[in-house]
């Protein structure tokens, strides 16, 4: 681990620059993706990736150059390119960063259980094959797939102010999905996949629930195929954590990204209905709503000690008792806006520059058990496992859909319904939060697929949440 540190530091020290400040972020990543589809092992897909980004600040103007050439000459050339670019854009630059403080300090961070070897390729295929074979023979089950992805990432950040941050992380993504078809409609039920990922080792596979899940997930796909559509109308909804994560992500996370609020993303990812003046004044949700940026849950996908600009990360409340307090803005956005933020300046790899991203964005548990949440609903729908998401560019009008729905009538869980969809407006929706599940309903989840930025970037984000109830929401089903 970190065996390139010494050589990298030597090369960094030998770099010559006319910039007042520069940094180097080296990223080395290896990954493996395995899959068994309909009892046939698909060929393994491996990858190895390594490179570095040099960022310079020259007369208050920053620019970067990313290269896969890590030789002394290659790094020096990249540094030169970044300097040349900083000079070329200086007359056009939006920001004067001469007075922006730079990161300092040293730290190492490792994922939990990183020292434990991951199961061998043969063992992984055996597990995937076993779950695939557990899907029963039924001609309505037309497709199923069991998969396991694992990525190991080492990052070393150095700068001319003496910062040295090293992070070694392993991310695990188990998944299973089954599709049932009756000649007209098809329904897919899944476990994990885009809705689950954690840091760790083999323990993540167990926590995901993949082991022994094949038959159960297949049965649920068949139940959905036979189920009626979700009824249309206004009802209470009980969102389970694997839908809450998407709800948090789209209608709290993205609108609170400070670079969006400052307008950087208006051409692509969009803007925000939140304004800089809303922090400290806007009642974002009901008093039951407590939202944190929390880098300290070891297994969560975006737990880390420092962000990719070298800022130390600490747990912070963004929303407390419904009141909006703090944006998701890294050091640069804080400098631009004058607002206090968090350590969330992140890049997807060595070839993209850090920007404001979600990291671990969580809802703190409340005081109701799942039976109590259900008992408090007269007419409602339980919804689980996100499958569809759409929200406007200001992150306000949304429509989300889930795989699994169950009616709730007079405080009791009733039959399964398919195509559970709901729509609303972020600015109102969170004020309808009427009950929050306790720690027994709390799950640590996350997704590898959060897209944003120009040039585009996909990063891993973590969301942990209890089950939550929202009152009087517009719900509806599908066509078939």
């Amino acid at each position, binding site marked *: 681990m970190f065996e390139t540190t010494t050589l990298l530091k030597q090369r960094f020290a030998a770099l010559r620059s006319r910039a007042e400040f520069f940094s180097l972020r080296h990223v080395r990543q290896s990954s493996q993706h395995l899959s068994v589809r309909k009892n046939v092992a698909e060929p393994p897909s491996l990858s190895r990736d390594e490179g570095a980004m040099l960022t310079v600040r020259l007369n208050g103007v920053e620019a970067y150059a*990313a290269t896969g050439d890590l030789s002394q000459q290659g790094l020096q050339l990249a540094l030169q390119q970044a300097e040349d670019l900083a000079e070329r854009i200086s007359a056009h*630059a939006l920001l004067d960063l001469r007075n922006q403080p730079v990161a300092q300090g040293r730290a190492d961070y490792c994922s939990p259980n990183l020292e434990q070897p991951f199961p061998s390729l043969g063992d992984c295929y055996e597990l995937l094959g076993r779950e695939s074979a557990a899907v029963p023979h039924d001609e309505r089950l*037309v497709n199923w797939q069991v998969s396991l992805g694992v990525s190991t990432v080492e990052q070393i950040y150095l700068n001319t102010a003496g910062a040295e941050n090293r992070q070694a992380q392993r991310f695990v993504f188990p998944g299973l999905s089954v599709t049932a078809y009756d000649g007209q409609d098809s329904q897919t039920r899944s476990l994990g996949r885009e809705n689950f990922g954690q840091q760790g080792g083999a323990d993540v596979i167990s926590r995901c629930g993949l082991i022994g899940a094949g038959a159960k997930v297949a049965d649920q796909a068949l139940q959905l195929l036979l189920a009626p559509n979700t009824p249309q109308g206004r009802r209470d909804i009980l969102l389970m954590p694997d839908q809450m994560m998407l709800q948090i992500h789209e209608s709290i996370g993205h609108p609170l990204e400070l670079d969006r609020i400052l307008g950087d993303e208006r051409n692509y990812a969009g803007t925000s209905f939140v304004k800089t003046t809303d922090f400290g004044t806007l009642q974002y949700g009901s008093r039951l709503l407590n939202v944190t940026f929390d880098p300290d849950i070891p297994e969560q996908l975006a737990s880390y000690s420092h962000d990719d600009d070298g800022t130390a990360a600490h747990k912070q409340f963004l929303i407390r008792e419904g009141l909006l307090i703090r944006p998701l803005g890294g050091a640069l956005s804080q400098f631009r806006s004058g607002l206090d933020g968090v350590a969330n300046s992140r890049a997807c790899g060595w070839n993209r520059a850090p920007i404001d991203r979600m990291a671990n964005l969580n809802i703190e548990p409340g005081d109701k058990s799942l039976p109590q949440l259900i008992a408090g609903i007269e007419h409602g729908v339980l919804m689980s496992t996100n499958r569809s998401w759409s929200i406007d560019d200001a992150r306000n009008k949304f429509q989300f859909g889930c795989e699994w729905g169950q009616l709730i009538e007079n405080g009791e869980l009733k039959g399964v319904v398919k195509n559970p969809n709901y729509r609303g407006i972020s600015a109102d929706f969170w004020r309808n939060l009427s009950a929050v599940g306790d720690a027994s309903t709390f799950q640590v989840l996350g997704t590898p697929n959060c897209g944003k930025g120009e040039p585009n970037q996909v990063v891993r984000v973590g969301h942990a949440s209890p089950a939550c109830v929202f009152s009087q929401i517009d719900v509806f089903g599908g066509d078939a």
Partner: protein
Amino acid sequence: MPAALNSVDTFRALVDWLREAVKEPEHFTLSYNAEASQFIRFNHARVRQAGQVQQASVSLKLIREGHQADLHLTLSGEYDVDYQRLAEAVQQLREILPLVAPDPYLQLNTDAWQSHAVQEQPLPDSAQVLEQIRQGAQGFDLVGIYAVGPISRGYASSWGAFGWHQANSFNLDWSLFHANGEAVKANYAGENWSNEAFAQRLNSATEQLAFLGRPLKTLAPGQYRAYLAPAALDEIIGMLCWGGFSAQSIANKDSPLQRLYGGDTHLSPLVTMAEQVSGSLSPAFSGEGYPRSDLTLIQAGKARDRLINSRSAAEYGLICNGADAGESPSALSMTAGDLPLAEVLQQLGTGLYISNLWYLNYSDQPAARMTGLTRFATFWVENGQIQAPVSTMRFDDSVYSLLGTHLEALTRERELILSTGTYSERQTSSTHLPGALINRLTLTL
């Protein structure tokens, strides 16, 4: 970058080394992606962030007696380092192959085909482009990105196939924002930068911006006549490209065009779509080594060809037509209609003029029912006259309605839309689309 990384000679040398290192009964395929890109982001018509990215990678597939495994590897541009990495990759794959079950769907193209396409049009000087943007955008709130540089793609196999595709290109993707928060989107992309062409597009955007200053109209949910400009239609087509035409998705019953390909329903006879590889910016060969064919996907509203990669070909007994792993179109072309662009407002009469749509997803995928939102310059039109910009609205409708029973006309003029996508690397896909006049669009929120 080591200029060499964008050179066919560098790729050929890697292939030659592999042909020495990998002998019967082993075989290999090697695909190659490289780019030297400059990215300049704008906010408030100033440069917000700028950088240079130089990257190259190979995807190596090693095959032995029915077993296969893949390894994707970033190259450094340093000769010794890269050959060491390639040697280690071969060794790792050799160790893995015995652990992997024989692949019943392994089907390789063993033809020794050759393909070579190089476009070395000189790229515009970024200082000159920056200055022109500064001058043109003076007084406007411009936000967006300029991406420029060479892109290379290569493919080779141990059976002697060798393909090389290299092109210089730029893509300026931007929006102009009115002080009231409304915006118009524009794009200028291609191989030859022309100051006049850029000025013309900027001018066209500023003209639309003037309309956006009018008081905003808020619509109630309901059903409206609507014109979808090519960029808006591109969002709908883009959704269909995710699995819609894929042989595997169709077989797995999760294609959004399942019912079309099953013959249960059809689109409007006005709808004809093709995967038009020839003449596009995409390579003429797939990442798995098959020459790519021009295909008619939908003809006069009825399903025709599907996109078939080698794996689907083997699994379903089909003939591979050069589709990539995801079996998505990369050069989709839709046949034009007969509505002159100049008559769109008149034909629309009263309804919505929608320049762009945003963030589409499915409400009911087997029914091809999708939802999404208006974004950028969307106008309320009465009696053929633009009246007011419209606040963001959500639609929820089936493709069988939008491009089926309720499609009234397609425009005679089409727009070539080059991908602005830069996830991992700059994309080379494109669409060529008309605008669509629809006599019933359902708005829900």
